[in-house]
């Protein structure tokens, strides 16, 4: 499954990446599984996206839960808690 992954704010700076196109293995079907898949890269990825880290996920520009399912062509965003206003 091909998805586009976006990173924002402090997460983008920490990872040194704003976006990437990924072709996911069949075992990755939800937001939580994608996060774990990225954590498995190790190093800064494992730390920034660790289970306890304050990271929000959106799929197709709507807030997603860990169990929210991915789909072909999805736009998935990872970002820290918001601080606007």
């Amino acid at each position, binding site marked *: 499954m091909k998805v586009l992954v976006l990173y924002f704010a402090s997460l983008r700076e920490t990872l040194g990446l704003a976006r990437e196109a990924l072709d996911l293995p069949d075992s990755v079907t939800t937001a939580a599984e994608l996060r774990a898949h990225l954590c498995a890269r190790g190093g800064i990825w494992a730390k920034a996206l660790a289970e306890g880290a304050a990271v929000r996920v959106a799929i197709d520009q709507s807030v997603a839960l860990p169990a929210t399912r991915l789909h072909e062509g999805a736009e998935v965003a990872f970002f820290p808690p918001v601080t*606007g*206003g």
Partner: protein
Amino acid sequence: MPVRIQTDDFDLSTEIAALRAGRAGVGAVVSFVGTVRDINQGTGVSSLTLEHYPGMTDKSLEDIVAQATSRWQLDQVLVIHRVGPLQPLDQIVLVAVTSAHRGEAFEACEFVMDWLKTRAPFWKKEATPQGERWVDARESDDAAAARWGRPE
């Protein structure tokens, strides 16, 4: 458009006049303007940069406005949020609500701000004498948003 995300400044009087134009049923106008402070958590702030998620931020603000209009009897709602580099004293955000009576307008204006602060994807980065730092989300903002309950 009830929602605008822009780098440019805005003028409160102009926006209110546009909201009220020809709307003789309106008896109340409540507005909130958020501005850049020169101090945060005890440290001087020399400038601020606001990042957003183009597309999702617009959608999120539109959803919040839709929630407000379903919960209260409102005439108009306007949200303007600036992005990009800002300085102390600059205006950041405007929420303006019009309605027949003040109670609805007061509550709806506060609701929109509380939800904006906890749901709309914006992030602030401050420049301080010790360098740049991303602003942390505040628990008090979560508590303020929680009192309005869940999305309807």
